[in-house]
């Protein structure tokens, strides 16, 4: 039943790494992005909420955070596009006994900047950040966050108390942002030694104090490498932008049918362009009016336009999770998203038109895209 790629991809090919509740799939196409080969599932039966492709320093490494319902969570590695999987037998992402915490799930795996080619970060539940200095073979917790004074007051959201988002600064490697549901957005300027909440202006509609210092249910934060201080944030109700690395936030829900949602993603080449998939409400987490539409801003949130050409526009009772919307880096940007009903859609023209890649996957938790570099 499970399949692997029959040949290694060529430079310029697009890889879509798809995590589902029943395993991981590696889906690929040449640069035309017209025909797709689906391989998988890898780790059948295990939930995959975190997946990444690392092609720094000549690697071709896929990293998967897989959660067995019985045996716990671990990060597995493949250097041959899923034909074989390696990784330490011991579970490499481990909390120290002194923390009193145990790993529930890996939520995010993020390669660091190119000038630290062996460094990766991972975010987990219960909320913590881990660092690898050997390309994902071993991991250590970031103590500044593990021992943060706010930790006893952080409350779990519907998905658990998870650190699901890692935002890097391409111009300042000691700076990084993370988002925790529900603790909000935190930033370090000293390589993880200290972390400060940066939620000024972001609402927490579910708390008596609607504008707390921390405790917001931030669903996703993204930025663009060319303008790292500008952040876009999809909140649990609320759509925001910051132009000062989170010091302050402005509401940018201008013309969207709902400011509730999970996913938000940058255009790969334009720091003013971002994509979201609004959902009707937190009680009915379905696209508004059952019309499946991605919304795009090209003016940093001053306005948003619906993109539904090729997507079902009636009886589409669909939902898209926080990491299930992604872009590739081709000149004509590819945009991709997966739904909780297992449908995977692609656009090779920056969202102007869409096609279905496959509609029969298990519920999709995450989608990451990569354009294969020359070796």
């Amino acid at each position: 039943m499970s399949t692997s790629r029959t040949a290694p991809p060529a430079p310029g090919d697009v890889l879509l790494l798809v995590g589902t509740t029943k395993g991981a799939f590696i889906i690929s196409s040449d640069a035309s992005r017209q025909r797709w080969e689906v391989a998988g599932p890898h780790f059948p039966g295990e939930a995959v909420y975190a997946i990444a492709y690392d092609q720094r320093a000549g690697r071709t490494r896929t990293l998967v955070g897989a959660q067995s319902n019985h045996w716990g969570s671990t990060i597995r590695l493949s250097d041959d596009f899923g034909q074989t999987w390696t990784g330490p037998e011991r579970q490499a992402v481990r909390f120290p006994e002194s923390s009193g915490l145990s790993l529930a799930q890996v939520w995010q795996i993020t390669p660091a900047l190119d000038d630290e080619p062996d460094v990766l970060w991972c975010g987990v539940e219960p909320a913590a950040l881990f660092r690898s200095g050997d390309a994902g073979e071993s991991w250590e917790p970031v103590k500044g966050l593990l021992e943060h004074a706010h930790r006893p007051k952080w409350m779990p959201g519907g998905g658990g108390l998870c650190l699901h988002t890692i935002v890097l600064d391409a111009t300042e490697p000691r700076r990084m942002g993370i988002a925790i549901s529900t603790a909000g957005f935190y930033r370090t300027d000293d390589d993880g030694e200290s972390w400060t909440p940066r939620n000024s202006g972001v609402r927490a509609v579910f708390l008596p104090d609607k504008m707390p210092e921390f405790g917001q249910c931030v669903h996703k934060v993204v930025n663009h490498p060319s303008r790292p201080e500008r952040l876009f944030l999809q909140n649990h109700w609320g759509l925001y932008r910051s132009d000062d690395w989170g010091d302050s936030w402005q509401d940018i829900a201008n013309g969207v049918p709902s400011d509730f949602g999970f996913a938000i993603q940058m255009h790969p080449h334009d720091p003013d362009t971002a994509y979201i998939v609004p959902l009707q409400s937190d009680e009915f987490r379905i696209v508004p009016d059952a019309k499946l539409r991605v919304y795009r801003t090209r003016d940093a949130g001053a306005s948003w336009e619906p993109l539904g050409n090729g997507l079902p526009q009636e009886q589409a009772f669909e939902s898209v999770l926080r990491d299930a919307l992604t872009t590739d880096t081709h000149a004509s940007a590819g945009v991709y998203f997966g739904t909780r009903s297992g449908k995977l859609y692609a656009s090779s023209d920056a969202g102007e038109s869409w096609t279905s890649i496959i509609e029969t996957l298990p519920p999709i938790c995450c989608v990451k895209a990569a354009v294969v570099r020359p070796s």
Partner: protein
Amino acid sequence: MAISIILPSALTRYARGTGEVSVDASCTTVAGALAELAARWPAVTDRVLTEQGELRRHVNVFVGDESIRFMDGLSTRVDDGATITIVPAVSGG
């Protein structure tokens, strides 16, 4: 004499294919037996116990025919010749 630990098939790969491990009868408790198992096959016990040494939620351990959840948990006494069986619980969806 010894205490026998039966591994589920999903974990035998972490014990070089071994499905049954004998540990010294001086262990006296399930925790002690699992500690000896961990000394030999740590990747097995990683998947049975959390970092805090607690039994994972969807893993069951039996001494004879009795689940330790209805006995004294990991402190359940094991006698010489006992059999400890590790099995995945009924769960999932």
